[in-house]
Each structure stands twice: as C-alpha cells, then as structure tokens.
C-alpha cells in the first residue's frame, strides 16, 4: 500500500477513537432515519414502479441521488459500534478518496487474471462475474465436490465459497480457535482444488468461513489466501463499522490484498423504502470507500422480511443508485444477487435475471451471483444458477436502459407475487450428480428452457 493511502487509513482510525460520542439508537432513528426522510424530500427522490419505471432512464434523477447520497455521507458519516463514536468525513475527504480510484484493477494471476473495469450506464464493456454460493452453509463432506462444480464453471472470474457447518468434524465457534481452523481449511482446500481443475490463478473471494477478524487474519498469510484474492470488509447496517473490520482493513492494506467492501441497506429498515434505499446505496458505497479504502464496493440491499435483494423495489432503487455512482465516480461497483428462490426452480433464474440486467445496464462493474434461497438454507445452492446469471449479465452489456426496463418489468411480473412463498427449491445433492459433478437432467432441462425463454422472449444472446 502506498504511503498516502496508508496515511488516509490511519486518519480513519483516528476518527473511530476521537469522534463525537453518540447513542446507537439515536444514530439509527435520528441520524439515519430522519436525515434520509429529509433528503428524499429535498432532492425529490421519488418515482412510481407501477406507472413509471423499474429500471430508470433519468440521468437527472441519478445525479440528484448522487448529491443526496453525498450529503448523507458528509452529514452523518460512519458509526463505530466499539467506541460509540461518530466518524465524520468532510466533502474534501470523500472527494479525495474517490479521486484516487483507478478505472480498472486486476485480480488473480496468469491465465486466470480478470480485469475489473469501471463501467457506465449502457456500457458494452465486460462485466466481471464473481460466482459461488456466497456462504450458503453446507455439510463438511460436500465441501470439495460442491466447490469443484463451481470452480469448473468457466464464466466465473472470481470464485466465492461455501460456509462449513463443521471443521474436521468439530463445530465452528465465532472468535474461537475453531474459526481459524475453518478459515485454514477453506483456504488450503480451495487452493488445492483450483489447482486441480487447472485454474491455479483464479482469484478467490475470502473468507466465507471468517465470522470475525480471527478467521480472516489467520489465513491471509503464507500458504493461505493471496494478495490477488479478494478479501472482504463490510459495514453493519446502517453505516456502522467495528474494530474487527478496521483491524482487517489495516491487515489487508499491509499485505497489499485486494478487497471487496460491502454494505446491505435494509429495505423497510431505518432508510425506509425504495427512495431511502437509493440514498443508502449511494451514501453507503461512498463511505465504504472512504472508510476502508477498498477496491470493489458492493451493495446487496436486503428486504427486511424476505431477506432477498431481488424485491422489485430494491431492483429499481439499485438501478438509480448505481447510475448515480457510475455517472459520478470511478467506483468499481458490484451488485450482489440474493434471490428468495433456490435451485430446482425457474423462479431463481427469473429473479437473478431481473436483478442482474437492471444492475449491468446501470453501470455495475462486477456482479455477484448467486446467493441462492437468500443464502441461509443449508445446502440450497448450485453452480447452474451462477452460469445462468453470468450469461444473462454478459447479454445485458450494451443494452439500453429502456430495453432493460421492458425486460425487467416482464420478469418481475412473473415472480414478484410469489417471493413471499420463499420457494427455496432443492438441495445441491438433488440437482447435481455427485459422481459426474454435473446437473441432473431435470435441472439442466429447466436451465435450458429458461435460457430459451431469455432468447425468444427478450432477445438476449445467452
């Protein structure tokens, strides 16, 4: 890490130690809740999903959303839950942290290197695919066969992992030595696996088995995850950090590790509904960048009851929020797909398609797919929905927002009313053959039918 960036990071740590002391409840209600309501009104962040659009085509709305998000970021800053202090950033500091951003980065090594490009709305440039189960919990004995299936998917540029239920037969405890054991098991096994499938330089999202800093610090070192892998830092909703994230930020900076920095604004939470989520996405990603000085800021807003990121209100809010950021910054923004549906259903494909099309045409640099069945149903994930998502995302490159809106509206019409049913679908072992490590004929057929639906109904080149 260069000296200038490290100095900026040290200043961030100073803010956590010296900022004004605040009550956390007051933060949520007054600082976030009231301020966001005022900004919605001030910047007129309003639209109708039913009568106007799901995917926005309005540049001035995007630019107003950017100003609103910037104002929230500047006025409120970040809350450190460990020190109970507000970490404020001046407009100058926020702008500086945005100004030093590169327009592209590379991850991985050798033939497995991927370039992540800054993209604009309707950009034909290639979107990077970060694919995997994203921490779906699985039984330890399924770890290797399942991850080998994912690693074999050629469209995956960055590979994410499962979350193990046990490590060497033992329960994993957050913050305990077993978290370090699980983290090492993830690192060593996955590195061996990608070498075996002929993709030794494939960048890995890490670590899915790190709950606290124990897991991440233990395995981002010699023989573990590499600087060219992508390490994770996050906010706690809304706009909160903690010592363990700041500690990881320091470690990743010193090891020159690539980082993904993510926040999940709550739809229906203190930011409110669609309008608040727009502002939360913009403010959140600007502040993530200023606080952690990371590489890939990621947003996957969460519906407060459904836990998904594919609710139509969120899809629409993301389109505006991402256009705001891609039009006004060089942030390499990533969109995180978390459908309610799981493998073995067509709903998962449709939810994934709607979300990814909306975000790719709005300027996403990376798409994360797919955290199936909202990511917390044991064993409910498969690589086929990732393959599908990658194909849809690439097909959406260069699409106009107007065309995208028509497609997304039609797709949303097919799944919006049934999301509350939470069709988690089938287990990995029910949709994949464990001997051949390929989809079952039934699951393959469903995938091919939906691909054909994308081609014939929407003209997507799948």
């Amino acid at each position: 890490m260069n000296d200038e960036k490290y100095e900026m990071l040290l200043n961030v740590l100073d803010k956590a130690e010296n900022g004004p002391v605040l009550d956390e409840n007051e933060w949520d209600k007054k600082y976030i809740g009231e301020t966001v309501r005022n900004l919605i009104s001030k910047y007129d962040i309003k639209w109708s999903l039913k009568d106007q659009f799901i995917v926005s085509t309005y540049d001035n709305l995007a630019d107003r959303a950017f100003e609103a998000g910037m104002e929230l970021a500047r006025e409120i800053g970040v809350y450190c839950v460990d020190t109970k202090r507000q970490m404020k950033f001046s407009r100058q500091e926020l702008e500086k942290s945005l100004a030093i951003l590169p327009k592209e980065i590379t991850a991985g090594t050798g033939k497995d290197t991927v370039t992540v490009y800054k993209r604009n709305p309707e950009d034909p440039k290639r979107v990077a695919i970060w694919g995997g189960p994203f921490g779906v919990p699985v039984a330890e004995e399924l770890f290797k066969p399942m991850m080998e299936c994912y690693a074999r998917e050629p469209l995956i540029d960055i590979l994410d992992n499962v979350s193990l239920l046990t490590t060497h037969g033992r329960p994993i405890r957050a913050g305990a030595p077993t978290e370090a054991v699980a983290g090492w098991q993830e690192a060593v096994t996955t590195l061996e696996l990608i070498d075996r499938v002929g993709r030794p330089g494939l960048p890995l999202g890490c670590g899915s088995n790190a709950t606290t800093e124990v897991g991440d610090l233990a395995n981002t070192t010699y023989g573990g995850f590499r600087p060219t892998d992508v390490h994770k830092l996050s906010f706690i909703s809304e706009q909160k950090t903690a010592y363990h994230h700041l500690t990881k930020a320091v470690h990743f900076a010193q090891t020159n590790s690539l980082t993904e920095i993510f926040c999940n604004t709550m739809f229906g939470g203190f930011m409110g509904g669609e309008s608040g989520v727009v502002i939360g996405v913009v403010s959140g990603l600007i502040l993530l960048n200023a606080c952690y000085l990371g590489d890939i800021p990621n947003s996957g807003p969460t519906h407060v009851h459904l836990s998904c990121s594919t609710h139509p209100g969120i899809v629409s809010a993301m389109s505006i929020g991402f256009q705001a950021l891609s039009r006004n910054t060089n942030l390499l923004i990533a969109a995180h797909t978390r459908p309610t549906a799981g493998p073995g259903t067509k709903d998962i494909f449709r939810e994934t398609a709607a979300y990814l099309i909306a975000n790719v045409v709005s300027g996403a640099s990376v798409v994360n797919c797919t955290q199936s069945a909202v990511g917390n149903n044991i064993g409910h994930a498969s690589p086929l929905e990732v393959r599908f998502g990658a194909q849809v995302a690439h097909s959406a490159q260069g699409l106009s927002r107007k065309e995208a809106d028509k497609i997304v509206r039609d797709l949303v019409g097919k799944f919006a009313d049934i999301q509350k049913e939470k069709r988690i679908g089938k287990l990995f072992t029910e949709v994949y053959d464990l001997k051949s490590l390929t989809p079952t004929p039934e699951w393959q057929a469903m995938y091919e039918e939906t691909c054909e639906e994308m081609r014939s109904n929407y003209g997507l080149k799948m």
Partner: protein
Amino acid sequence: MKETIDWVTVQKEFLDNILQGDKEAAIKLAKNTLDTGCEPLEFFEKCVAPSLEEVGKRFETLDIFLPEMVTAAEVVEQVNTEVINPAVAKAKSIAITSKGKILLATVHGDLHDIGKNMVALMLKVNGFEVIDMGVNISPSDIVERAAREQVDIVGLSTLLTTCLPYMKDVSDYLQGKHIRENYSVIIGGAATTPEFAKQVGADAQGNSAAEAVEICKKIMQVM
C-alpha cells in the same frame, strides 16, 4: 357518570397520533378519555393494544417502515408512563398491561441486530416487557441477567452459523445452574432451524418478528 366512548374514533385518532410521533396529542387523548370515567385498563385494551397491533400489521406489509414503528412504540411507552400506569396505581387495581417479560440478546460473536430489534419492537407493540441486552453477549452474561431480571422468556438471536454454539452454551449453562425450568428459551435468526432448536433444548424457533410474537403469546398463555 361515565360517558359513552366512541372507541372507533378514539382508536383511529390514537393510531394517527402514534404513527406521526405526536406524543403530546397521544397523551392528551389518553388523559381526556380517562377523564370521561373510562378505566385505564379499558383504555389500554380498547385503544392502545389494537393501535399497536395495527402498527405491527402495517410493518409486516411494509406500509410503514422501521422508523415509524420505533416512533409509535416510543409514544406508547410515554403514554403508559405518564397516563396509564399512574392511573392504575391511583385506582389501586391490579392491571396487567404486560403480557410477559422477555430478555433478548444477539449471542457472542455476532454484531447483527436488526432482526432482534424488530422482534423487540413487535413484542413491545404487542404488550410484552422487553429487556434488550444488545449484541455480542456472552452466554454467562445472558444467564446472569435472566436470573436477575426474573424474566419469563429468554430470546436468542444470530445470523451466523458459527455463533450457534453460543446458543447451546446458554441452554447448557441454564441446565448447569438447575434453573432451566424457570424460563422458556426461544431462538431466531437466519442461522437457526427448528432442528437446531430441538438439539439445544430450546422451546421454540422462529423465522420472523411476527412469528416470535405468536410464539411468546402461546408460551405466556401456558405459563
């Protein structure tokens, strides 16, 4: 002589007051209604409780969001503190305005709290007394606080599978101190399942704030 009260109108006005966060208007309405000769418990049962239930329903359908629910709950707490409870004490009647006492905590290792906070709010708006310990709470602290506060229910939350063992610890510690039978233990959060609840001897597991309320109502009817 006690006046006839148009509860439909009163309840609608009270609901509007609490949704708008108008504490003064809500308190004034409560006082005026009690001044007509209405018993405080009757006001709570015919006005406050249905209003809170409506708030909970509107949050379930996201006709209102979390800030409105927090505001409504806070206004009702003020009405209870300034009007209902003093009136109850004055009348020296035994008024049970609390359905039960519940201790909530996100277990050790986990900093997530939005789900737990939603459960806390929904329980409050449904008439429970809630003690919220916050996040990253050690099993021993949870057990110690439960005993000190003499709660009816211990509610544990976690989003993370790696924090599930700490839920088991709470159950084990209660057993170890021979006080398990004094409490009902309920668990929730994305990482929990009914199977895990059985494994650790929890009384119930829930997947949503609304479900948590139903579970607690059922438990308190039995106890």
